[in-house]
């Protein structure tokens, strides 16, 4: 689907790739994602190893951002508590579209080991914001986070970005006057 796949069947003598504008845009978007890191607990320590020399997360073309306004996706790494939940919601609302969310670790997926007696733990971050990629594990290995990142890149690669309003109107989510 993506632009790189089209390199296999180039136009006539090669050197020219025919594709859509959407392909180029998606290729650029998926290979240079900037993330807002929301390190909360144990998974954040694995995430630190991820950024260090062995795993080198930046090879995915991603750069950490400290502000939601410049971020393409948010990484929730760790247990979300009720005291924290409203802040995550607010940061998510501050991010500019198109935006994605990656939930790392069992705690942010579903409450993890705290699901039963954790009176102060939010049982899954998807109760407050939409999640695009779930990475299971307690904590997930850095390889698992890399796999999650590849999944997110594929998701962005295959996204239809044009005529969004019309598509939504077909699904009946919004109404537009023609």
């Amino acid at each position, binding site marked *: 689907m993506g632009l790189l796949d089209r390199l296999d069947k180039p136009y006539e003598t090669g050197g020219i790739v025919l594709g859509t504008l959407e392909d180029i845009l998606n290729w650029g978007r998926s290979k240079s994602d900037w993330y807002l890191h929301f390190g909360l607990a144990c998974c954040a320590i694995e995430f630190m190893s991820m950024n260090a020399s062995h795993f080198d997360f930046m090879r995915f073309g991603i750069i950490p951002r400290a502000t939601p306004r410049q971020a393409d996706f948010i990484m929730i790494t760790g247990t979300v508590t*009720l005291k924290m939940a409203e802040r995550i919601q607010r940061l998510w609302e501050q991010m500019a579209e198109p935006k994605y969310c990656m939930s790392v670790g069992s705690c942010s997926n*579903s409450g993890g080991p705290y699901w039963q007696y954790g009176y102060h733990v939010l049982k899954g971050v998807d109760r407050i914001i939409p999640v695009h990629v779930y990475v299971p594990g307690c904590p997930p290995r850095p390889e698992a986070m890399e796999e999650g990142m590849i999944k997110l890149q594929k998701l962005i690669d295959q996204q239809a970005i044009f005529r969004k309003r019309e598509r939504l109107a077909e699904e009946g989510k919004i109404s537009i006057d023609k």
Partner: protein
Amino acid sequence: MTIEEIHHSLKEKFGEFIGELVVNPPSDSYINVEAEKLLDVCFELRDNPDFAFDYLMCLSGVEFQEQLMVVYHLCSMSKNHKVVLKASLPKDNLKISSVERVWRSADWHEREAYDLFGIIFEGHHNLIRILLPYDWEGYPLRKDYKEPETYHGIKVPY
């Protein structure tokens, strides 16, 4: 000093306000103290050079049947001895004097005990919740605590 000697000298000074010494190895021995005299006992334990308890290791609230207890684990850095004090509070009158003026580390420990058990430490300069949100209701570590259904519109149980 052993805990027996500490108990003996405290008993001489404070009389009936010092309860019995409970010895039950292998578990820790502890001294029961009446809640209203606790602050004086603590000052004595810190300032008397024989005791010199300058380090509060741990302060915990405990619910035990019909009463709540505050347990103080003390240690002396210079003399290298330890003591455990216990003060019982009835559930309808959860008030005890704060030992924040004796050991500064009691500040956060007491706020935590207030947060989770609802024990009121009189004389504490800033007795507000520390771990839970400031508008949380109830005291979670009590045995009869019920998890709230929602918090700020977010569903809490799984």
